[in-house]
């Protein structure tokens, strides 16, 4: 039975805390954005499935699903990595006030960081392979030591 032995002070009481709203203050400070994929709404799941989000579901009795299709970078045209000293100062024309007649200058948005699109399912598969490899390497190492000691 998953009970608290001594009920700790929970931030939320009751069996099912309400869905967080974007304006609700977070105990960690500024409101943290709620990712749509974290919502329990079935409608969100349907949208995610329709968008082709790779969320394979294991069917009972089905063979293990192979790893997903090749992963993609977050690739955008003319993407630039975030580098040290991103230039946020407005051009000289705007600093002198000549830009006021035009659309106000906005700081260039930071480009998305270099990343890789990988599902947790594939990540766990890689972890499994890495652990198996590690165990094999350790077994080989132990065999070498035992062979050497036995000489």
């Amino acid at each position, binding site marked *: 039975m*998953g009970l608290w032995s001594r009920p700790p002070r929970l931030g939320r009481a009751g069996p099912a805390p309400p869905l967080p709203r974007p304006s609700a203050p977070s105990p960690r400070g500024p409101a943290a954005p709620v*990712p749509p994929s974290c919502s329990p709404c079935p409608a969100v799941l349907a949208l995610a499935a329709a968008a082709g989000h790779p*969320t394979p579901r294991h069917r*009972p009795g089905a063979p293990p699903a192979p790893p997903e299709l090749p992963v993609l970078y977050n690739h955008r045209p003319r993407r630039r990595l975030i580098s040290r000293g991103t230039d946020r100062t407005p051009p000289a024309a705007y600093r002198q006030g000549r830009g006021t007649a035009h659309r106000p200058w906005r700081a260039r948005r930071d480009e998305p960081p270099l990343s*890789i699109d990988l599902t*947790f399912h594939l*990540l766990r598969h890689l*972890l499994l392979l890495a652990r198996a490899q590690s165990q094999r390497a350790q077994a080989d190492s132990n065999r070498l030591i035992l062979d050497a000691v036995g000489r």
Partner: protein
Amino acid sequence: MPSAFQFQCHFILIFLAASKGETRYLEVRDAGEDEPFLLLSEDLKRELSAGQVYRRSLRCIDMLSIEGQFTFTADQPQLHCATFFIGEPEELIMIDYDFVNIDCKGGDFLKVFDGWILKGEKFPSSLDHPLPASQRYIDFCESGNIQKSVRSSQNVAMIFFRIHQPGNGFTITVKKNTNLFPCNVISQTPSGRFTMVIPHQHRNCSFSIIYPVVIKISDLILGHLNGLFLKKPSAGCAGVGDFVELLGGTGLDPSKMFPLADLCHSFHGSAQMKIGCDNTVLRMVSSGKHINRVTFEYHQIDLQEPENRKENSIEEFCFPSI
């Protein structure tokens, strides 16, 4: 030889050895009982050391959890590659560039990221990492001539690389260093036990388990270890400097995960929670005024089992992708 005289001889020998600074040698001899490697001859030790360096080639998408020397050679243009590194919670990852043959000006790159980043979400989050996001990428093309080694701040790291020309590639050596007070950790396994200690440090630490788990907290100490009575806040964790929170979500970044529970009072016992999320994070927020410690166990839950709704379960807030 009379035993008294024998004892005196031994005493004199020990005194002489100590005065020459050879007592360390005696300690090493003692350690030999636990370390069979020390009983081997120098030639044999050398042979074993050389043969024990693990080597293999890297794949475009790969994960490594052991030390060794790893080589990637492109047999065709490889434009989207990454290698994940993960160690034990108390280990740091050290990556040395042994050999790099890439065309930086031709669009190739080789970058080390301090942490893991998946779909734009970073672990540790920007709130919990000592470096700003831009400094967590170490680009070989920019700093390779200067920085031959890169060390991670936690037990995970990764590299991104792109190589256009077949035949080009690189070789790296991966080593592990010890981290006395692990702070941000990704668990290699879906089950385990860990004690997180934050000793008088103003920092936030996250322990991430990328599986749906049952997590059981057996010991939580927020405050001084000598048992001084702490003033308890009237309600909730709001305004409390130090607390532990459980987060659940489907991404890697703890700052974008859903808070499931807060714990802001010390207790000894068992507090268990089933979290059916793709990623479960236990995060400790520490003001630096106290020594905080939390011990917990976790094991993977089988989501195919019939669910008992009477349990303290919040899996309805996460729909895992398995």
